[in-house]
């Protein structure tokens, strides 16, 4: 396909049209040669953030490895919607074993490649937040501490969406799920530290840890690219809004991911061997309410009377993140 030169108008300073960039700086998604690793025709919901994230990540990883990439998948939405027998959307070698074991399976694949002397072929494992922060955590921690040569990608939509939206260890405070009803004095998911997996990954001091969202494509692709230049255990945590579970409009997936980052609730950073090396600064900060309001899982916070007290507690989490990671652009 010939690349057409199209003139775009820039919108302020915040939305550089991809095609205004030099060709070398354009995203893999803009390339006619992209693998389309997760091909069309799959059965994800409209506006699925995970489908978007997986395609972004895998296409970038396929490019970074010159097409020599094997993928291991945990059980979950991504696995179910992509491979209803006898169809498969995967345009690369792909293995699904169980819910909890994707990191260990990937370790085994990496070990096999090493034993066969195939250091040109790379391994990427992927799962949702349930498969990663909850049921798969032991296997993931083992993969980290052994520094196995795997990039593990968590697509975090903050609950068990495949089974009908139940709370996971990644569900944020006060979010309604099917197992955290929006009733009582502290409605929705309980407030606490939650399970902050990027920080758990940092504690393993593995070569690379990064977070990203589906709203910042250049950032996400650059992180995948960087991860694939390294060896050893690497972890990428991608926020992927879920219209079904969050009660948001399918068209709002990218907007919500951006608001999550700009509110400070989802810090976007990268780290090397346990030390933060870069953050995606917040250029125009938004109050958390702006991010929460479009999501029906938080509708109880905005009812009459609104739960200002709970919103303040969520705002405090965002403020703490901004301080901790130095997210506010000077």
């Amino acid at each position, binding site marked *: 396909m010939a690349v057409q030169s199209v003139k775009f108008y820039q919108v302020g300073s915040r939305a550089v049209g991809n095609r205004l960039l030099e060709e070398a700086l354009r995203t893999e998604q803009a390339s006619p040669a992209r693998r389309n690793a997760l091909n069309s025709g799959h059965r994800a919901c409209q506006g699925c953030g995970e489908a978007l994230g997986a395609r972004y990540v895998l296409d970038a990883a396929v490019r970074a490895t010159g097409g020599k990439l094997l993928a291991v998948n945990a059980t979950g939405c991504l696995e179910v919607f992509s491979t209803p*027998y006898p169809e498969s959307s995967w345009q690369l070698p792909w293995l699904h074993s169980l819910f909890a074991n994707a990191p260990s399976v990937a370790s085994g694949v990496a070990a096999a490649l090493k*034993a066969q002397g195939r250091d040109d072929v790379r391994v990427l494992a992927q799962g949702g937040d349930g498969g990663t922060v909850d049921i798969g955590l032991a296997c993931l921690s083992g993969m980290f501490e052994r520094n196995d040569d795997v990039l593990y990608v968590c697509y975090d939509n903050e609950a068990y969406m495949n089974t009908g939206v139940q709370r996971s260890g990644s569900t944020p405070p006060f979010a309604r799920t099917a197992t955290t009803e929006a009733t009582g004095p502290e409605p929705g998911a309980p407030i606490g530290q939650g399970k902050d997996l990027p920080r758990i990954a940092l504690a393993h001091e593995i070569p690379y840890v990064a977070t990203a969202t589906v709203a910042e494509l250049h950032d996400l692709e650059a992180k995948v690219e960087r991860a694939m230049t390294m060896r050893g255990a690497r972890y990428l945590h991608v926020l992927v809004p879920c219209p079904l579970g969050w009660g948001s409009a399918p068209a709002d997936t990218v907007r919500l991911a951006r608001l999550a980052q700009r509110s400070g609730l989802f810090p976007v950073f990268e780290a090397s061997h346990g030390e933060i090396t870069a953050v995606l600064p917040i250029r125009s900060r938004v109050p958390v309410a702006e991010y929460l309001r479009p999501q029906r899982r938080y509708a109880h916070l905005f009812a009459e009377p609104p739960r200002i007290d709970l919103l303040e507690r969520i705002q405090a989490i965002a403020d703490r993140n901004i301080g901790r990671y130095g997210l506010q652009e000077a």
Partner: protein
Amino acid sequence: MRRQLEGSRAIAEAVARCRPQVVPAYPITPQTHIVEAIGAMVRNGSLAGCEFLTVESEFAAMSAAIGASAAGARAYTATASQGLLYMAEALFNASGLGLPIVLTVANRAVGAPINIWNDQSDSMSQRDCGWVQLYAADNQAAVDLHVVAFALAEELSVPVMVCVDGFVLTHAFEPLEVPEQDAVDAFLPPYAPRQVLDVDDPVAIGAMVGPEAFTEVRYLSHYQLSQALTAYPQLCDGWQRPLSMVDAYRVDGADTVVVTLGSVSGTVKEVADEFGNVGVVTLTMFRPFPYAEVRKALGAAKRVIVLERALAPGAGGIVSADVRAALSGTLAEVSTVVAGLGGRAVTRAALRRLVADAMSGWLGERLVFLDLRDDLVEQQIDRMRQRRASGPHALGLLRDAGIPGSRIG
């Protein structure tokens, strides 16, 4: 060359000569010596081209073996007891995906109560996980079965579990012959997978299958597993020492035949020698179940005693259910004898009494527990009748038995 070797060491050397490429390992008694020895061989270079992974659980060990096998590598691991149960989900997955992994189970009891000693509760609990199950009667068989296991697994694309009695075999030192590298190489060709993750020929392995084809996929698992009934004897024919699927001993003209699996077979044969008119049938292969061979071996027996090293609570026997099915339509009486649980010795004296009970007609089709301490269980049952808060069984039984240290304070 015969050498004085520990069973675990000999198994490790046999496995090493099968040139495994990935060995994920997690320690559990009484299996640990096997993976320790393999790890040492990888470290000192005598087992080249092998990745040894010290993983964080048995579930991870089997999962890494799944990944390695799907990536085209020969994969092996070993476990026992709780470890086997902890990897149960991955066992079903490995067989469902048709990955030819070889696993040693150093047979050990399953808790509670926790018990590290030998019986076969662990592997019997995984009877239906879709793996070939081979039981070694002695350490030489254990060594040889591992070589055959790799060949069988890879020929059929099914995983194979080699069950070796914990301690009794794994920790026993005896003169053993570990096959030479040349002999193993001649017997076992390099692994040629039916399916592999290959960047030049991408496939999706582990797709979701709904009602439209799930039965067919499961049927094919059954079909492939059943092929072992013909493939295994053919492979054994090409091996340097005789190996059986079903070993029949003194069965000709014997009215009473004892059926068993594993190392207890030796003791049973000694008792059979004393009687002279008692046969012994030892099953090496338990899955797939060799119905025709068992029926043939039990021939005209009138009384069949199935000596089981495991218990199906609420039902009784596990092996005897299959033996009965194999003998369906015959007049043979089949009894179930649960023996040697959690490391209790199966003595010749107890077996003599058992055979005498069978010959007298008392045993019939009963379910009996060999050497059960009736006094102890009756006291505990009585205690439960008298007191709601009767406490843990284990504590009550140990107190009644007067085991020192059973009383706290």
